[in-house]
């Protein structure tokens, strides 16, 4: 537990340093500071993954049952996707301007909710293959729309600022197109999460939909991205308006993913299922 805690808080500290580097890098248009942000994000990612792995592999506990575990995993997958995007292209270095501050805040919040690992065995209702599909869909889906929002922010920055770190950014059209693709991917994966949740609920409760607060909020955030796609494809929205929309939609996503299970009694709150 102690080693896991040390690794977890080390990740939070490095993400904090990375956040500061990105923010000051953007403000001062300094490529060096942005580079420091990326390096500290990579350094922080190592203990972050180690803390998840410690709980999962060594303690044998599935690391997505409590809200703190779910936050830690969701942020971990998001930072991983962010790093993969960085690996794929150097042009979107500034992507961390949104990803790292939000990751830092979410992981810090997870730190305040952390408890010792619960029993290694899943409660009977969760002993289902659908759970894994559900978790994978939710984690990667969230990460994809998170990156899309980050690209939306870059679009807005590119439009308003010039020189320094902004010169390297791709043209607005490319940013807009890239953001759209991440939304399509996130929308699909979030759909997989909802559908697998429906199949799991049918297996356990004999009903695919229960109007549970988390179910409803998940549907709301999924349809929020459905509206995004229709605004783009059907209504022809592009650029600034969609960039702002993707940032607002991310807030809805975070609220539905973690805010609702935290604040409302629901069977998703640490999967407290009465059986």
């Amino acid at each position, binding site marked *: 537990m102690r080693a896991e805690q040390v690794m977890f808080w080390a990740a939070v500290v490095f993400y904090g340093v990375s956040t500061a580097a990105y923010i000051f890098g953007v403000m001062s248009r300094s490529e060096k500071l942005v580079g420091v942000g990326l390096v500290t994000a990579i350094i922080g990612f190592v203990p972050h993954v180690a803390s998840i792995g410690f709980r999962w592999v060594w303690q044998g506990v599935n690391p997505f049952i409590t809200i703190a575990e779910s936050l830690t995993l969701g942020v971990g997958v998001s930072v991983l996707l962010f790093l993969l995007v960085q690996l794929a292209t150097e042009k979107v270095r500034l992507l961390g301007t949104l990803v790292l501050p939000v990751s830092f805040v979410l992981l810090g919040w997870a730190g305040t909710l952390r408890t010792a690992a619960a029993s290694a*065995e*899943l409660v*009977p*209702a969760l*002993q*289902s293959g659908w759970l894994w599909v559900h978790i994978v869909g939710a984690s990667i889906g969230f990460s994809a729309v998170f990156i899309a929002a980050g690209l939306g922010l870059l679009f807005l920055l590119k*439009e308003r600022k010039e020189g320094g770190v902004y010169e390297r950014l791709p*043209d*607005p*059209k490319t940013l*807009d*197109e890239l953001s759209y*693709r991440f939304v*399509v*991917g996130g*929308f*699909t994966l979030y*759909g*997989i999460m909802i*559908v697998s949740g*429906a*199949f799991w609920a*049918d*297996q*356990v*409760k*004999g*009903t*695919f939909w229960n*109007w*549970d*607060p988390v179910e*409803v*909020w998940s*549907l*709301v955030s999924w*349809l*929020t991205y*459905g*509206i995004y796609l*229709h605004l*783009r*494809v*059907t*209504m*022809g*929205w*592009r*650029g*600034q*308006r969609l960039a702002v929309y993707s940032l607002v939609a991310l807030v809805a996503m975070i609220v539905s993913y973690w805010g*609702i299970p935290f604040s*409302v009694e629901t069977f998703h709150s640490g999967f407290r299922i*009465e*059986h």
Partner: protein
Amino acid sequence: VRRLGSLLVSPKLALVVLVTVLICAVVGVTVVRGARAGELIFGTLWFNALLVLLAISSGAAFFSRIWRRKLTLVSAGMILFHLSFAAMLGGIVYNQLFFFRGVLRLTEGETLPNRDPASYDYVERGRLFDFERLKGTTTLVAMHANYKVGASNKRAAYELEVGEGASPVRKVIYVTEYLDFDGVRFFCLKEGYSVLLVLSEKDGREVFGAHVPLQSYRQEGGAFRYASGTASEEVAFAFPPPPNEPRADVHLAFRPSTVKEREGEVSLRLSLPGPHGGPPVERNGQVVVGAPFDAGDFALTPREIRYWVGIDVKYDPGLNIVLASLCFGLSGMVLTFAGRIRQGTARKRRPEESRPAASRAPGIERESA
């Protein structure tokens, strides 16, 4: 009619209805919650009508635009996705008309007829559902506590026998495993203790016996107390129950043994009629399972402990349509996603073929649907 038609195919109407549905859904899980939300929003005719309007409007808006377009991977995915929405709605409506949901409460060894409405503690059904659809009987053979499947502890598992005639279906069900008999599904719901209470005269003659199902009451600290009563409070009951002549009002509580299954101590609190019509006389005590409790003129023996279980019985003829639609919808999304990736790759390879600009934001091209 033409104006109505053009209104129906307008994507703006679909978006307005969608946003309205979203607002209602958010209100239903924030301002009003739980059963009240079902009564005021999710279960109402107007909300379901709104869902129908959403499906019709979005379907009309989509298909009026996709009509006569070239069939590509993206458009095929979109067609599949939007068609699945319509099919899902059809499945939901069909299910609403014919569905059945009931809760059977059975004590170990008890059998109840499935088609008799009196067998159920709770019944909910579609307008066109016929009880004749529920065939045969259901027997609770046993309730297995700490039931193991491989290395996994499923905690509570019910061994059921359902069917009619010579070959009933027998199966152990637990939280992730249900029994299917002729399209009717049986799910684990809840379980509790049941005390076989036997009344004997002074001379040892047994005159009455009945199973008393106990409720579980959560205590501070998370422990449970098992006692007679309703779901919300502990109450005494007349024993023997009417139409027999009651000899006492009995309140009963059971403390299970931590060592042996189905053993433990039973606390009894009796309220006996006073002599010559006087005020009732209280008699309290505690006995182990199997031992008699002296009530004065008679004795009460908690003879044995069994389990009672609540079984969720469900018949959803539209469910497979809904679940298949979900899969088709998902396939549509994946196809569209793959198509978009392919489009992007092709555009990168042939930049000179990119479409003419009709931007709404600086430097952004407008893409056709």
